[in-house]
Structure formats: C-alpha cells, structure tokens
C-alpha cells in the first residue's frame, strides 16, 4: 500500500485553477519529485498535502487514512513532515532550539511539568536534546548549535530546516526546493542526505529546480504545468516526453496539447 495517495487534488484562487486534478502515489523508501516551470503549482500542491491550504477538490490519504484538509499539526502526528521553499525558521531561537522544536511531539507533556521543571519533562527534554545534537552533526551544524538561527547563512538555514523536519522522525518528508541557493558542494550533500533517508525507508516527496539532482535521485517524477499533471514516470521517460520538453522550452503553434489545459 502506498504511504501517500493523492487523488484528483485541486484548488482555485479567485477563479484561477492553481492546481487541478492532480493524482499520484508515494511508497515508503521512494523518492518522488514534482517538477514544472515557475508558477506550475508545485508549492501550492505541497501546501495542500501538508494541510497549510484546504484543497478545493480531491483527496489526500496517509497510510490509508483520509487526511484531506487536516491541520498540519495533526499530519505531523501521523508522520508527515516538510520544509519550506521560503525558509520558515524560528529566527530568534538558537539553532539547537529550532531542532528541539521539531521534537515537540515526542517531548511534550503536561504544562505543569513544564512550569515546575519536573523530572519527567527534564528527561524527555534531555533525550530530545541528544537527538537534536545528532541531527545537527548530520547536517554539519553542530558547531553553530548555540547561535541564534537568524545569523546563519542561507545554505545553513536550508540544512537546519531539514534537520528540524527530520526531528519529527517522519514516515514521509516533503522537501520544497532543498537545494535552492546552495552551491555545488552543498547540493551534493543534500543529494546524499536524501538518498540516505530514502534508503532508511522514509518516503520523499521533492520539489526541486535543479534538474540534474532530480534526474539523479528520483524514482518517479510528476510534471506539472499550469496546475495540471502533464506527465509522470521514471526520469528517463519523463525527460523524453514531448509535453515536458514543450512545457520547459515553450510550445510551437502546432503543439496545442496543453495550451488549453
């Protein structure tokens, strides 16, 4: 059974169909990429799947349970975690606290335990702190742990967001342009990290503009244009698909297949 099942998902903003009738599935350990030109609706699709937007049509299922329009914090409890294209970092908090926030679900307890600093809370927090430090090492931010996150470079913040998303110990991870603004070395690191995560059984849904990265690591690619799915398949198939080439390079007049789509 697929972990994530998206069926006929759509949303309109003031009459404009930002995403229309998009369906695909993601299985555990699989890397599925969503690609498409700017404005194709990739981030909107992510926002619907992760509960940030309420879909207008269609359904989303997670591990066989329908979760269409369920709040992001409930989806987090069910094992869905994500990063953001336009970084959503807790700027005023330290790097370590940012990752610890990702441990919220495993370290939360009663508010009394928090106010009185009871041993149970301290134990949970200590466990979370240990995990957070390991994750920071994994993304090479362990030395910056006590720094205020707002002071970090863009590439470092990208890695911090991934570490925070991993802190949830997700079953499925949605990465929205993780390599954007990163140099070649950083991109390669992210490439390795994603492959590692998938190998450990996490399902990955990826939006990325770096085509080399996408073609290299994806098992399956979904191509969007003007909010519609115009193609899907393995990297080799998709890269030869005329509709995809047309969407990226522009269409001639005699190629009307998707102009009305």
């Amino acid at each position: 059974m697929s972990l994530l099942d998206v069926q006929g998902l759509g949303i309109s903003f003031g009459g404009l169909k930002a995403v229309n009738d998009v369906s695909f599935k993601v299985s555990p350990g699989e890397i599925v990429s969503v690609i498409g030109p700017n404005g194709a609706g990739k981030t909107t699709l992510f926002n619907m799947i992760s509960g940030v937007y309420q879909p207008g049509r269609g359904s989303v299922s997670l591990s066989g349970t329908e979760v269409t329009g369920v709040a992001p914090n409930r989806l987090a409890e069910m094992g869905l975690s994500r990063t953001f294209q336009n970084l959503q970092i807790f700027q005023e908090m330290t790097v370590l606290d940012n990752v610890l926030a990702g441990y919220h679900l495993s370290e939360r307890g009663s508010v009394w335990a928090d106010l009185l600093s009871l041993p149970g809370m301290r134990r949970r927090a200590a466990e979370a702190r240990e995990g957070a430090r390991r994750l920071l090492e994994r993304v090479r931010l362990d030395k910056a742990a006590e720094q205020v996150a707002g002071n970090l470079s863009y590439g470092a913040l990208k890695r911090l967001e991934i570490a925070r998303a991993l802190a949830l110990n997700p079953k499925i991870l949605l990465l929205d342009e993780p390599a954007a603004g990163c140099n070649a070395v950083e991109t390669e690191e992210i490439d390795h990290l994603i492959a590692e995560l998938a190998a450990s059984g996490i399902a990955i849904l990826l939006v990325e503009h770096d085509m080399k990265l996408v073609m290299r690591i994806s098992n399956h690619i979904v191509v969007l244009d003007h909010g519609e799915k115009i193609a899907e398949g393995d990297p080799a198939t998709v890269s030869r698909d005329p509709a995809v080439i047309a969407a990226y390079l522009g269409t001639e007049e005699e190629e009307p297949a998707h102009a009305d789509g």
Partner: protein
Amino acid sequence: MTGRNKWISLGVLALLIALLPLFFPSGYYYRVGALIFVNALSVVGLVILIGYAGQISLGHAGFAGIGAYACALAPEHLGLHPALAVLLGAVVSGVMAALIGKPILRLKGYYLAVATLGFGILVSMVLTNERALTGGPDGMNVADLGLRGLLRDMGWRLSGGEFWYMICGVVLLVGAWLALNLFDSPSGRAMRALHGSEVAASTVGVDVPRQKLRAFVISAVYASVAGSLLALQNGYITPDVAGFMHSVEMVTMAVLGGVGSVLGATFGAAILTLLPQVLTVFAEYEQLVLGLVMVLVMIFLPQGLLPSIARRLKGRDE
C-alpha cells in the same frame, strides 16, 4: 537560555531582593519595593504572553482586577481565608482567560490588542458600576491576610512594609522561576516557535491555538496574583487596578525592560515604578520627562533596556 542562565537570573534577582533593604534610608522604601515586585510579577506574566508567544494584550489589568476583588469580596461574602481568595481569584482569572482567549486569540496584531482592550474595559466597568457589591469608584476594604499577626505571635516582629516586601519578593522569585522553567521546556519552545512562524510551528506538530491559549491563561494568572497581592498589602482597592492605564503600564514596563527576558521585565517594572517617584522634582513636567525617557529607550534600545545593555557589554568582551 541554558539551565545555567536560569540559575544566574534567579540568583541575581534573589540577591537584589535580599540586599536592597540594606540601602533603604527609611521604612517607606519597603513599600516601594513591594510595589515594584507586584508590578514585576504581572510583567513576568506578560513576558510569557508577549515575549515567548508573541501575542499582545491591552487588557491584562482586567485579570489584576479579578484577583484584587477576589481578595476583597471572597472573605466577606464566602467566608474564605484571604490566602484562599488569592487562589480563587487565580482560578477565576484562568477560567475567564480560557473562555475569552479561545475566540479572540484567533485575531492577530492590533485586532487582538483591541479585543483584549475591550475585555479589560468590561471588567473595569463592572467593578465601577456594581456599587452594591464593589463599592463603585470609591473602592472597598480588603481583609488582612493574618499572616503577619501569626509571625508576631511566634516572636518575629515585622513592620507592614517589611512583611509585604518579603512576601512579594518571594512570590516574584517563584513567578520568575516558573517563567524561566517554562522558557526552556517543550511548551515554552512551542510558544517561541509559533512566535517565529505559526505555519512552521504547526508543521512540527505544535497545536498553535492551544499553545497561545496556554500563554494567555498563564499570564492572566500572573496578573491576577499580582492584583491580589496589591489589594492585600494596601488593605484597600479601587477599580483603577483594572483600568486601561494599568494595562498599558504593564505592557510598557515589559517592553521598556525587554520583553524577551524575565530579568529585563523586572528591571522595566522597577524603572517605571521608581521613575515617577524620582521625577517628582520636575513637578508638572513629570509626565513629559517620563514620556521622553520611554520614547528615547524605544528609539535607541529597541530590544528593551536590559537586553540592549547586556548585548553592548557582551560585544565589548569579544
């Protein structure tokens, strides 16, 4: 903030509370000190709401009013001991905060400010107009706590000023300890996270409305206890305690001192409680100078007095 910082903050606060009386030229200063501690207590509550969770309230004096009038009314009408009346006030304030917080915390920024302002004004109007119960604008007497008499019987003679200085100092320390615990706890992190980005906080599993409500209720209880202590030490209370000016004063103290830090908030409360006393030398220009000081602080030290000073000192070390 690490665990070590917590104990440093608390240690500094405890030392100040314990040692300041050595420099008091007269017994009157115990009164001023106790007033500072009461103000600081409600401001520490606002640090949790504003500094941690990033929400605003211009109506927290309403909760101070509930706490104060609980101490005035409950002993007389319900036969409760004044100490239990403090508790009752805190519970009523907490429940009220939960009830009104649920709908209004969905609002953001100045909409939230106006909604909380409305609540504060409502409480103050009820206290002013329910003359039969509250004595109206003239206020009412508050029963004695009885603890000072008990201590005297045990051979520990304290003046009223000394006694309330001690009580309020201890309660402030407890309040600061709880707030500092909260800062570095799962709830505190969740509050600070939603302050930074609500959407990111919810994607890491934070129930954003719930955490906002938590911060609102906790800060309401702080204000309520502060109001109770004010009523008990004065032995008298008027609806001014719930007035709009008191709400604004609380927020100003918090922002002036540094809304992100418990110690800063205490500092802000101390400055704004003391300044009017010092500025009496300026006679009719007192308000003018007070306003000017606040404007200058906000322009040149926007993080608040204490954090800005701390940052400067730190910068010099490096």
